[in-house]
């Protein structure tokens, strides 16, 4: 197997809200088409770390994405970099005043990445892939949570991202909806997308991850292959967490 280059390098990332330090000196790398899953107890800093990767949160330290320092990027540069990092949120955050199709085509058209026709064609293809082509003209509020999340994934994919960031994508879903969303994510993983995923779905983590990072108290407490984290690790905090959630 060829060694893929690093697509993201996080170096000494720190974040604090006033006195409250939430991320303490985080460093890790993500290779192209690698699947990295962040797990850990609530309040451990997983979501905050993910949100630092596309600078939705300010931080100190460095995030290098495709050899460019995101932390020092100008506004325009940051926008260009964000276009290549798709993000999927726990609360979906679809635009309620736009149809499903408009949700997906809005950014590519507005940013002059594609023409209206090309964007619509692509959006319909993506909707077909997530099994929602018949909902193109519906408004988000008429969809179930699982459907909304699949549209949100399609919206992020419409930008042709290099990396997809998932922030607890199934945590707000009814249990019977979780499977559909995970299935779409698995398919994306098999197609070679680079993915960084914060999740509580341990089965999914074991199956899809190349690397699992266990975060606790704002630090990377443990990391390694799924086999290592879920079975072999000697770290007592990891073991305790895994035993509670599995």
């Amino acid at each position, binding site marked *: 197997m060829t060694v893929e280059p690093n697509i993201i390098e996080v170096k000494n990332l720190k974040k604090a809200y006033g006195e409250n330090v939430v991320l303490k000196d985080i460093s890790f790398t993500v290779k192209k088409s690698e699947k990295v899953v962040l797990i850990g107890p609530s309040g451990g800093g997983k979501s905050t770390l993910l949100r630092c990767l*596309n600078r*939705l949160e300010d931080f100190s330290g460095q995030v290098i994405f495709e050899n460019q320092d995101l932390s020092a990027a100008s*506004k325009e540069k940051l*926008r*260009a*970099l*964000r*276009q*290549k*990092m*798709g*993000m999927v*949120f726990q*609360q979906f*955050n*679809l*635009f*309620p*005043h736009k149809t499903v199709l408009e949700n997906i085509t*809005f*950014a590519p058209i*507005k*940013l002059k990445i594609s023409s209206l026709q090309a964007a619509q064609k692509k959006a319909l293809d993506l909707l077909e892939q997530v099994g929602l082509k018949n*909902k193109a*003209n*519906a*408004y988000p*509020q*008429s969809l179930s949570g699982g459907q909304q999340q699949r549209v*949100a994934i399609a*919206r*992020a994919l419409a*930008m042709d991202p290099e990396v997809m960031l998932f922030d607890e994508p199934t945590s707000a879903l009814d249990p019977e909806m979780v499977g559909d969303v995970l299935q779409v994510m698995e398919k994306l993983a098999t197609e070679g997308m680079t993915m960084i995923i914060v999740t509580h779905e341990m089965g999914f983590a074991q199956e899809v991850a190349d690397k699992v990072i266990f975060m606790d108290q704002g630090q990377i407490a443990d990391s390694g292959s799924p086999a290592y984290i879920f079975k072999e690790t000697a770290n007592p905090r990891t073991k305790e967490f895994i035993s509670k959630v599995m």
Partner: protein
Amino acid sequence: MFGFMKQYYPVFLEGTAQTIIISIIGILIGILLGLLFVMMRLSKLKVFEYLARVYIAIVRGTPSMIQVMLIYYTLSKVISVPQVQFLGSGLDRVIPGSIALGINSGAYTAEIFRSGIISISRGQTEAGLSLGLSEKTTMFSIVLPQAVRNILPALGNEFISLIKESSVLFYIGVQEVTAQALGVGGTLYNFVPPLIVAASIYFVLTFLLSQLMQFIEKKMGRKYIQSN
């Protein structure tokens, strides 16, 4: 009781037209200033935020009648508008008057916009930014359209108050409905009937406006739940 209307209805029509025109101009200026000041109020630059707070505090904390007079007497010294008559009033009064209404309304509209913007979840902004959209595009294409839908009832209220408040322009000699009614009352030595006519005119105008706002509200609300 209303027999005088046979003779005086053109005066009331002229006054009504004047009231409608100064109100529309006032509302438009109010919306523009409201947008400008809400952006300043929410700006990261403290100077802008402070200026917007001062503007809002002054306008809300002083009587509109005094504001109108101050703006009229100040503007008339600074810029000279030709003495053209428009619906029975000089443009040198109508223009500063409408601007004053707009400046007054802008403060309230800015606060209404602010309440709408903070009612939209931060996630909407984050979704926009994460797609690589600029902060401006995210605000104007994602947040504001949703905010406006939430604040339509409050905006309707503000527009209705502005129509009624426009009667303060009487003090600077704009011949709007109230001024015309008082004029007719003076001629007749009887103020009650013409004032009832004026009140009815305001009622019809504000009623029609509230119906229009309700229609827009329904129209904007319906599409949100459309399923196909």
